[in-house]
């Protein structure tokens, strides 16, 4: 009897007791759903901020300041940075540099009295060129030297609902929304962009917040880093743009991950107990059947494996249905404050193949944990006693 019991025998046992199977699987599926949602949330946040900017741009901020909002760079510092090696040049031989000014502005959320801190980025035409992923999808770009702004698609949707033609007041001025841009679901979609010099005037700022510099090629980052290190009087920190934003998502993503995993583990206890109850009952109901199988020559190992398979199948079914439900969560968009930067970030939940695999394995594992003890009990039944039982 090398082959053991066939899979169809195992599967039919689950189908035979529909209500029990459905209830147990429903409990497990809910756990799977929570687990998958949490992983998708952390992944969505990482994807949003990690996909912000380009690899060949470098963010320059004041030494020690961790975010662009905290940073200040003087005009002298900016001039010095332009002379550094490794920088790309534009069509007219000028370095590709965007001097940017960021402020946090309180905007009300729709359907709520609470205020969110939204990033308003004062940028330059070069700055727009350096972020080709941000495309205007509605209206037009802001004109330099005017009180015009464009809003990211995250600000246009959901809890803010800004539209072309809206007027927003900040910095003692009214700003006209003239366009909506889409930056492919990246962190820029949670920002508002306007003309840097105008914003600096409005907010009476003398200093820039950050400098975005283009690299000549992806390898010249090291040369630039070395040059910065040789001039300690510059007092700046540099990071590749993609890395800069990816680092800003780490704390919140980790927090969501840890919180979610703790909750999932506690919940899974309930689901494992459910699977255990079901599998014990499955063994108890079939005592005579097991005795018959053993009398026919099936070994203890075959019986254990059959019941384990049944539990795993139960877990798999639960995992699949939980996953299908979680897949719909991809339609949900979350708007919350990233406490690391103190600013609003809008992101969607993302289901990756890796998450799907992890979640299914977890679900099958729950099934195995629930089925192990009952399967073991089934295999220990003595043939004669089992056949005699009612």
């Amino acid at each position, binding site marked *: 009897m090398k082959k053991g019991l066939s899979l169809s025998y195992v599967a039919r046992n689950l189908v035979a007791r529909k*209500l*029990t199977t459905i*209830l*147990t699987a*429903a*409990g497990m599926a*809910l*756990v799977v*759903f*929570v687990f998958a949602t949490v992983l998708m949330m952390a992944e969505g946040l990482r994807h949003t901020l990690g996909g912000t900017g380009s690899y060949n741009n470098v963010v320059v901020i*004041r*030494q*020690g*300041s*961790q975010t662009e*909002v*905290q940073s*200040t760079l003087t005009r002298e510092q900016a001039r010095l940075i332009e002379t550094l090696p490794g920088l790309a040049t534009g069509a007219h031989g000028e370095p590709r540099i965007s001097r940017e000014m960021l*402020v*946090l*502005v*309180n905007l009300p959320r729709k359907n*709520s009295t*609470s*205020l*969110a*801190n939204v990033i308003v980025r004062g940028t330059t035409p070069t700055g727009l060129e350096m972020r080709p992923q941000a495309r205007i999808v509605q209206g037009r770009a802001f004109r330099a030297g005017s009180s015009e702004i464009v809003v990211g698609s995250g600000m246009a949707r959901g809890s803010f609902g800004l539209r072309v033609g809206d007027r927003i007041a*900040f*910095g*003692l001025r009214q700003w006209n929304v003239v366009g909506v841009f889409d930056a492919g679901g990246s962190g820029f979609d949670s920002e508002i962009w306007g003309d840097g010099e105008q914003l600096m005037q409005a*907010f*009476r*700022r*003398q*200093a820039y917040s950050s400098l975005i510099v283009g690299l000549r090629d992806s390898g010249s980052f090291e040369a630039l880093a070395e040059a910065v290190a040789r001039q300690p009087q510059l*007092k700046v920190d540099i990071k590749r743009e993609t890395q800069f934003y990816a680092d800003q998502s780490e704390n919140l993503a980790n927090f*969501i991950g840890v*919180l979610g995993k703790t*909750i999932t583990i*506690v*919940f899974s*206890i*309930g*689901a494992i*107990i*459910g699977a*255990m*109850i*079901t599998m*014990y*009952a499955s063994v108890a*109901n079939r005592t005579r059947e097991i005795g018959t199988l053993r009398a026919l020559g099936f070994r203890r190992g075959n019986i254990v494996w059959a019941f384990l398979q049944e539990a795993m199948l139960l877990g798999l079914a639960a995992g699949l249905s939980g996953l299908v439900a979680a897949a719909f969560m991809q339609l949900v968009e*979350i*708007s*919350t*404050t990233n*406490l690391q930067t*103190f600013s609003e970030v809008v992101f969607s939940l993302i289901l990756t193949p890796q998450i799907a695999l992890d979640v299914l394995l977890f679900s099958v594992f729950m099934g195995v944990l629930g089925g192990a003890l009952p399967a073991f009990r089934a295999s220990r039944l003595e043939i004669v006693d089992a056949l005699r039982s009612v």
Partner: protein
Amino acid sequence: MQAVYVLRLARKNLWRHRLRSLLTIAGIAVAIVSFGLLRTVVDSWYAGASLSSAARLITRSEASLSFPLPVTHAARIRRVAGVAAVSWANWFGGVYIDDKHFFAQYAVDADSYLELYPEFVLPPEQRSAFQRDRRGVIAGRKLARKNHWQIGDTIALKGTVYPGNWSFMLRGIYDGADSKVDENQFLLHWDYVNETMRALLPSLADGVGVFVVNIHDPSQAAEVSAAIDSTFRNSLAETRTETQKAFQLGFISMVDTILLAIQTVAYVVVLIIMAVMANTMSMAARERTREYATLKALGFGHGFVSMVILGESMTMSLVGGVLGIALTFPVAQAFFSATRDLFLVFQVEPLTVLLQLGSALLIGLCSAIAPVVNSRRLVIVDGLRAVA
């Protein structure tokens, strides 16, 4: 009389599958504990804000907290009718050792700040030592204990908002007036930071993050707030004044999406265990189809059989529920000790206990529905013939 029979029968039925019943009760207890704990986490998050003094207002920049207000506002706020005292504080945001050793640091006006926070209890000699030494700082009891600081220690911070390497001298350790005062704060001299910045980065000098305003009459909070804001209307630095409670609730609302998620998840756990329990009951009822048919054949009505089923499920869910409620308190205590810095208070609210009990009842009730319906539909002859 009949009730006693029903209960006795239910108890006997419960005891027939000891393992299954115990597992189910354990499952319900786990679910009720996690439900209570999740609710308490959300409650405690909000609780921090409700503890703040009603007579204290916070004035900050209208645009957002990241804009400093000129320190000269202090004198003008003091002149507003109804204002008793004014002080100010800046978020310092220095890094101690590394990011993992985070704690809140405020650069405060040393002369006036402690007057406004009588709940920070500090021996007079430590207080004057702090006020005399520009590099002096005071820290909360919990914070000092966590980092093993003694009075007289030098504490080095790496500036983020205010660049540079800073070194401070611990001059005092404050205790909270009661257990609800945050003992994790770190207060340093605003003057010291300001003078350093004036020499180094003039653009950051003379700025104030928030003004703390004490008012004579807490019931006048709204009027005084409006009066302060109108003083600065249409100036370069407009203000937004609100009670300290509203200010803190504003912080909490930043993460309210996450709080909402936790709350939703708390109800999901009830659903999970409902499925588990419903399964147990339906299994038990299926095995006893013949017994129910026998009872009916003997002349007991639908009602009696239903009561037996309901009695069994309610007993199980209530035992599990009460066990869970009893366990919630020690578990919450352990959770609080494990995350001591995260919450100021961590108390299981009476409403939470009530909801836990309600959930247990609901679980018991819902899981009996399918078996009760089935037993009503049961035709005696079929039931007697049934094989489990």
